[in-house]
């Protein structure tokens, strides 16, 4: 099923012509209206007219999240303030957020890409959509809300949290698909288990779009198993419309990145150079259709790779592999670089432990991985608990090359989050 078959299956040569034309237009506009880019172009000695092929993209400057903060609130706006229709912000852990503006066309496009993405997974107007993302300044909920309305689904703007009400809505309105963060999906599964609800019997759930935090394939399987539905991976960031930037089709093998709206590059985060095709690095994105706030070569900090082989679904847009981590999330422990996702992968593959975990860094580079014990991991012997703890520490060591302390905890000991989970607590005195 397609939402916009012509553009979704456009041949690559035509797609690249379209990209070049839109890129040239975008560059002309920012050169005319955005002082930040005018200055960058001057520093690098590039003019909009120099851009003759897509390969010339590499001559353009990067944009970083620090640039967005430095130009807060309106420095990157490319249209008159009056023409901005919507303001979103992207959460910042410190200081000011990033201000992101949408024009009327931008709002419509963002919804359009979500509609494409939903239909690619088999969603139709018969579906009932319970949206568990946070409504508000965050793009996560509103953009998918518009997308599902375009498809014609019944939309339930539930927002996150209040699991009892979530369950009631699912039961009473026969919800068929969800949009949810991985951590809340896992929490919800536990909640249902505790309340004796078997999602396969009592509910009509078929799919969940899980995103907003990177998660592993093991977590995906765990959500599918415990909620009895199909999980579709999705990728988006507020700087690029929010959700619906890239989405899995029914093949569930990589996320089609809508290349008529974005150009994706994969670079080496240290050198800034493009990596050879298919290799892993940092995703860098350029908007092609954004009016209010176009961004050139935006450093997403997300670590991934691109799949350029044809997809059996017929869509010609290249696919993004699962996000391996965020270069911002990278930890350095005893000189070793590691991502929390590596730890998650090990824990999720272990039947005796639960879904929630926390990485605590203390003292001088001491790492403790805290995880909750599950019934399946309890054999009523204290020696077996020590054995499980040591087994996990050993498994983690072989994955991350540092041997952490492992601490098994009773269920419910670790904080659960309705939004983005805080997995790493760094109290090191280095």
């Amino acid at each position: 099923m397609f939402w916009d078959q012509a553009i979704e299956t456009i041949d690559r040569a035509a797609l690249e012509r379209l990209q070049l034309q839109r890129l040239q237009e975008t560059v002309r506009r920012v050169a005319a209206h955005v002082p930040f880019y005018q200055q960058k172009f001057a520093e690098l000695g590039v003019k909009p007219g120099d851009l003759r092929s897509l390969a010339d993209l590499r001559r353009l400057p990067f944009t970083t999240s620090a640039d967005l903060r430095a130009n807060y609130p309106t420095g990157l706006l490319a249209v008159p303030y009056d023409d901005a229709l919507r303001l979103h912000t992207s959460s910042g852990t410190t200081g000011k957020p990033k201000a992101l503006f949408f024009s009327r066309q931008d709002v419509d496009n963002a919804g359009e890409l979500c509609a494409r993405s939903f239909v690619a997974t088999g969603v139709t107007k018969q579906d009932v959509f319970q949206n568990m993302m946070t409504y508000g300044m965050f793009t996560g909920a509103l953009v998918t809300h518009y997308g599902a309305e375009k498809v014609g689904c019944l939309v339930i703007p539930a927002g996150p949290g209040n699991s009892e009400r979530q369950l009631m809505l699912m039961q009473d309105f026969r919800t068929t698909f969800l949009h949810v963060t991985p951590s809340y999906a896992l929490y919800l599964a536990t909640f249902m288990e505790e309340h004796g609800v078997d999602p396969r019997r009592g509910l009509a759930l078929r799919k969940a779009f899980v995103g907003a935090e990177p998660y592993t394939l093991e977590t995906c399987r765990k959500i599918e198993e415990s909620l009895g539905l199909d999980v579709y991976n999705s990728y988006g960031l507020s700087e690029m419309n929010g959700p619906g930037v890239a989405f899995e089709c029914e093949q569930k093998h990589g996320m089609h990145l809508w290349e008529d709206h974005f150009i994706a590059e994969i670079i080496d985060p240290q050198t800034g150079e493009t990596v050879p095709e298919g290799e892993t690095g940092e995703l860098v994105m350029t908007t092609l259709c954004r009016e209010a706030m176009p961004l050139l070569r935006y450093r997403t900090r997300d670590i991934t790779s691109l799949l350029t082989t044809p997809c059996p679904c017929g869509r010609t847009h290249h696919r993004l592999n699962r996000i391996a981590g965020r270069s911002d999330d990278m930890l350095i422990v005893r000189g070793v670089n590691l991502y929390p996702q590596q730890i998650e992968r090990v824990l999720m593959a272990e039947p005796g432990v639960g879904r929630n975990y926390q990485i605590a860094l203390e003292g001088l580079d001491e790492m403790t991985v805290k995880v909750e014990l599950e019934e399946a991991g309890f054999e009523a012997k204290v020696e077996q608990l020590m054995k499980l703890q040591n087994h996990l520490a050993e498994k983690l060591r072989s994955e991350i090359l540092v041997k952490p302390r492992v601490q098994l905890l009773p269920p419910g000991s670790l904080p659960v989050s309705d939004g983005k989970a805080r997995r790493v607590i760094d109290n090191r005195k280095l």
Partner: protein
Amino acid sequence: MKNVKLVAAFAENKPGQVARFTQILAQANINIRWLAVASTGPYGVMKFLVSDPDLACQAFKDKGLIAKLVDALAIEVADKPGGLQTIADCLAGHNINLDNASGFIKNDRAFVVIEVSEHALAREVLQNHGFRVLEQPELPL
């Protein structure tokens, strides 16, 4: 023959843990006859012999705790020196490992509760030696 059931629960090895569990049992109006706590490092396993093991296990689970029922053997012995030793000798003679042993006295009757490596074999051996191995309903709880 049905073995006696103990309720085993996972706990952290820190102050206040026993109280946390016993409070749940008290609220559920369950009488504790016998309690064993084993701890190593940061972990503890508590085992309870109670009037209603199924109810107790569920009461723990309802509070989000990890609990399960495990088998044990309860044997009535003479309340005099050497009572436990005759049992231990008998099991050792058949190469059965004694994991845990304790006892209690109720109404002037003495009972030994044991956990062993092979419960069925242990039961048979003990009965062949003339011991009275009790079932759950026969326990004076």
